[in-house]
Each structure stands twice: as C-alpha cells, then as structure tokens.
C-alpha cells in the first residue's frame, strides 16, 4: 500500500462498547487520499465520519483493519506512539477552535511547536500567517478574537509543524457565512500554495465543494465518492 497515498485505510472497523452493547461506528472503510489532495467527507450524524477522523488523526485506535498515515501503520501503534505521531504528522482544526484560553494566539501556535520539539526557525511560516491574515492579532488571547480569527489561529497552529495531513472537523460549523467562506478560502489556498493534504469533515454541501473530491459516508461505510469542483 502506498502509491503516492498519504492516507490509506483498508477494511477499517471500529466498534464501541456502549453499556452492554457493541456499536459498530465503522463497518469496513476503504479510503485512499493522495498527497496534496483536499478531500471532503460528508454524511449525516452517526455516519462514522468523526470516528474515521479520530482514527486517521491517531486519537483512537481502530478495532480492526489497516490505517496508514504518511507510511505509518496506526493500527500497530501503542497510544504513546500515536501521541508522538500526532506531533508532526497530523494537524487538527476543530469546529470549536479548541485554542488554549490562557495563552495568546502567538503562544497557542508556539506551544504546538514546543510540543513537537520544533526549535528550528521557520521564516516560511510568516507567509502562512500572512495568508491567514492574523499577524496583527497574534498577541491577543482567544476571548479577544472573533470566531473567524480564532479558527484562522487554529489553522496556523495546525500547520506550524508542516504536518503530512491537516484534519479539519466541521471547521465552519461555528462560523457565520462570511467567516466560513474566509476559512474555506484559506484552507483551499494553503492546499493550493503549499500542497497541504487536507481531509475535511463537513455537514455543509457548499463547504464540501471546496475539496477536490467528496466522500459520502453512511452507517459506518463510504457509500459514494465523487470529485469536487
């Protein structure tokens, strides 16, 4: 498995134990994402897209099947190994921004570099900050930033260590239309300029059109895949 794919899953399954019941969240997902691709995953609640997001992001292990991210077999990794993998291989953007409230925007980005032991100067990152248009807001804490600004900071934090993949979970879910468009434009811009691989989960069909391709999920399976605009 590889063929230029930065993400590959085969017969990926995840079963959660809820009380005395086993609930199958993923029922055999086969997915391949090319490096530099911008993939949108859509589907109703309970379709398994968030579970897929968590497994690909190394936040939880699969019950069975194979998942390769940047050549690393996540299914074979311990929790500590997955934690180490997340430092540099994956960047997360969440619906609720998930910035550390006590730190300034600058420190929110810096702590991601610190955790990843990324001490090298990175002048190229200034370009990213310029693309995201947040240079003037870096010394503010999250509670002094608008939702759109917070999400742009979260994107900056997600890409500061130049991860192999950027995972975005409903990145526009808490934003108004104008800010949603801004954030999506920026994700597309990062994908286009830097070749950043992006896997975005969304309920919003309009947001999904920003991807090169859209994958439809239902009942823990991929039911349809079509190219985006």
């Amino acid at each position, binding site marked *: 498995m590889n063929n230029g794919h930065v993400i590959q899953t085969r017969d990926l399954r995840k079963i959660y134990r809820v009380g005395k019941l086993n609930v199958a969240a993923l029922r055999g997902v086969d997915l391949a994402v090319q490096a530099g691709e911008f993939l949108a995953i859509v589907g109703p609640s309970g379709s398994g897209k968030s579970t897929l997001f968590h497994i690909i992001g190394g936040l939880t292990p699969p019950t069975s099947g194979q998942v390769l991210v940047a050549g690393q077999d996540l299914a074979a990794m311990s929790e500590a190994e997955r934690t180490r993998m997340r430092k*540099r291989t994956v960047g997360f953007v969440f619906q609720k921004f*998930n910035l550390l*409230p*006590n730190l300034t925007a600058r420190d929110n980005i810096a702590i991601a570099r610190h*955790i990843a032991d990324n001490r090298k100067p990175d002048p190229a990152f200034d370009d990213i900050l310029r693309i995201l248009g947040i240079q003037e807001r870096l010394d503010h804490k999250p509670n002094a930033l608008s939702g759109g600004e917070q999400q742009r900071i979260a994107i900056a934090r997600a890409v500061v260590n130049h991860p192999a993949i950027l995972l975005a979970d409903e990145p526009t879910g808490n934003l108004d239309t104008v800010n949603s468009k801004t954030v999506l434009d920026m994700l597309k811009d990062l994908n286009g300029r830097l070749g950043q691989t992006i896997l975005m989960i969304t309920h919003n069909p309009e947001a999904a059109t920003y991807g090169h391709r859209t994958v439809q999920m239902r009942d823990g399976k991929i039911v349809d895949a079509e190219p985006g605009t």
Partner: protein
Amino acid sequence: MTGKLVLENLKNRPMRTLLSVLLIGVPVTLILTLVGLSHGMLEDAQHRARAVGADIFVRPPGSSFLTASGAMPDGILGALEKLPHVKLAVGVVNQPVQGVTLGIAGIDLKQFDIISGGFRLLAGTTFQGPDDVMIDEFYASEKGLKPGGRVSLLNHDWRVCGIFEGGKLAHIVAPISRVQQLTGNVGKISQAYVKLDNPANTASMVQHLKSDPMWSNYPVYSVQEFTALYSINNIPGLRQFVGVVIGIGVVIGFAVVCLSMYMAVLQRTREIGILKALGASNGFILRVIVAEALLMGVGGTVLGIIMSYGAWWLIRTLVPASIQMVIVHSWWPIALGITLAGTGFGALYPGISAARHDVIEALAYE
C-alpha cells in the same frame, strides 16, 4: 513554553491560586513560628543564664536544668564560699508566675549586683521596700506597667519600683526574703550562682564538687554546660511536637494541592484534550500539573515566611515577656523542602488523572 503555560494557568485563576498559596502558607507559618519559638525561648534562657555572670550553677538535689523552682537550704551558700577559688556564692529563689514561661526571681540585690554587675535601670529605682518588684522592659510593655504601678504576683500586691533592661536572670525580680516567705521557702533557695576567682578554674571546680560526697547529690553545672543543655533535643517532647506539626503541615499542603489541582484538572479537561491532540505526552501533562503545584508551593513558602515575620512582630508587640520568638533563617529551605514534598505528592494524583484522560472525551468536554 511549558513555564509560560504554567504561569498563565496560575494567572488565569487568581482566586484559586491565591487561596491555595494562602492555605499552603499557613502550615509553613505554623512550622516556622513553632521553630522560631523553640529557638527563641531556648536562646533567651541561655542568654539570661550567661548574663548572671556566674561560673558555676548549683541546683537542688533531684532537680534538672529545666526546673525553675525547687529548694535547698540557703546555708549551702556559706559552705560554697568556703571552698577554694570561690569568690562569691549567691542564692536565688525562682517561682513561675505564668505557666512555665514567665517567672519571678527572689534576689539579694546587693549580692546579685556584685556577681552580675547589676541591672541597668531604664526607669524608677531599685527596691525601696520588701514589697517592691523590679520588672524588665518586656514585662512592662506586655502589662503596660510603669514605676509606681501595682501588680499582683504570687497572690500578693507589689509596687513596681523600677524597670530594667531585659536579658538578665528573669523578667521580674523581687527581694528574696519576701519571695521565700510567699512561696513557703523561708531559708531556702532554688539555685546558687557561684563566682570563682578565675574562670579558668571552672572545670576543676565542677569536677571537685561532683566528686565530693557532700555535694554529689547537687546537680552542678558550669555555665557552658548549663547553656548547652538548652537545646531542642533536651526538652522532653519538643522534637516530637515539632515533628507532629511538620507532619500536619505536609498533610495540609498535600490535601490543599490535591484538591486544588484536582479541581483545576476538572476545569481544564478540554485544554488537556487539546494538548494531547497536539501530541503532548502523558509526561508533559503530568509535568505541567506538578510544576503548577510546585510553583504554588514556592509561593506558599514565601507567604509563610512573610507571615512568620507577622507572628514574630505580634509576639514581640503583645507578649514580649511571656514568649520569645526568633526568625530561624536556616529553616527556610527546610520549610521549602517540606512544602515541595507535600505539594509535589499532592499534585501526583490529579496529574496522573489528567495524563490518563481520553483525548476524544476530553475534547468533547463542555
């Protein structure tokens, strides 16, 4: 960056931080005050004993260096003065008047002046009559007394005739005959102070007294021996008491930090999830929590030291004669070590609990 995160976490919850620091600081104050009192009282006793100016102390049979009262016939003074090298022997009657920390000493002022060089009067006069007392500046300050004032001691009404500079023998001195009479010790003394013709003869004289059958029942000390006995190890139960207070301090510090950090971890569940999503290891999360607790421990120690100065000031102001406290600087690092041990262990459980948070559940925490 970790340090900044820790500092910002502490700054972001100022009331929690301040309360935790205060609660850690209280047992630190308790420990430093107790140690300060132990040292202060012992050093004060040593200083007073040295200031008498004697070379040898003789105590009643069966007494110890700690016993303030007790009795032996005052006739021994004459017997002591007949011994070679003895220049003068002066008897004193000691009687506690307020617990064990404050006593009155009955003296023959003329004799005592010869052996000690006399009291330095700050106000008033020496004894003018049998019912006069002289008090030191500390007792005068504590009780608000001035020359001419009245004070009731040993169920007897006394006139304060003078106030002397403190630090010699006792806080209160009165004519020996009246104290002997009031304490049922007529013709008896509690202690004999012996002045030799030459201090170099002290060791041989002490040896002679200890080996002489006539004096073998009397505890005899050189002034060096006597003052050396005033140590924490020689006060029954004091070391154990200090140990118990230290133990309480550790337990309080542990409990305060454990509770405080546990609450902090609960409040910061989502933030812990964010850090873990970014790739922070369990060790990193634990370090942040423990560092935060240790920083509060350092703050609590500093506050405890400051508050111990407050206790010192209060004691000096309110009860300078009854109890003495000194600031024992050598105990600051010990107090810091005790606090860091308590806070470090107190933070372990919340820290481990935080490190073990499931990252997905933590991120979903509202």
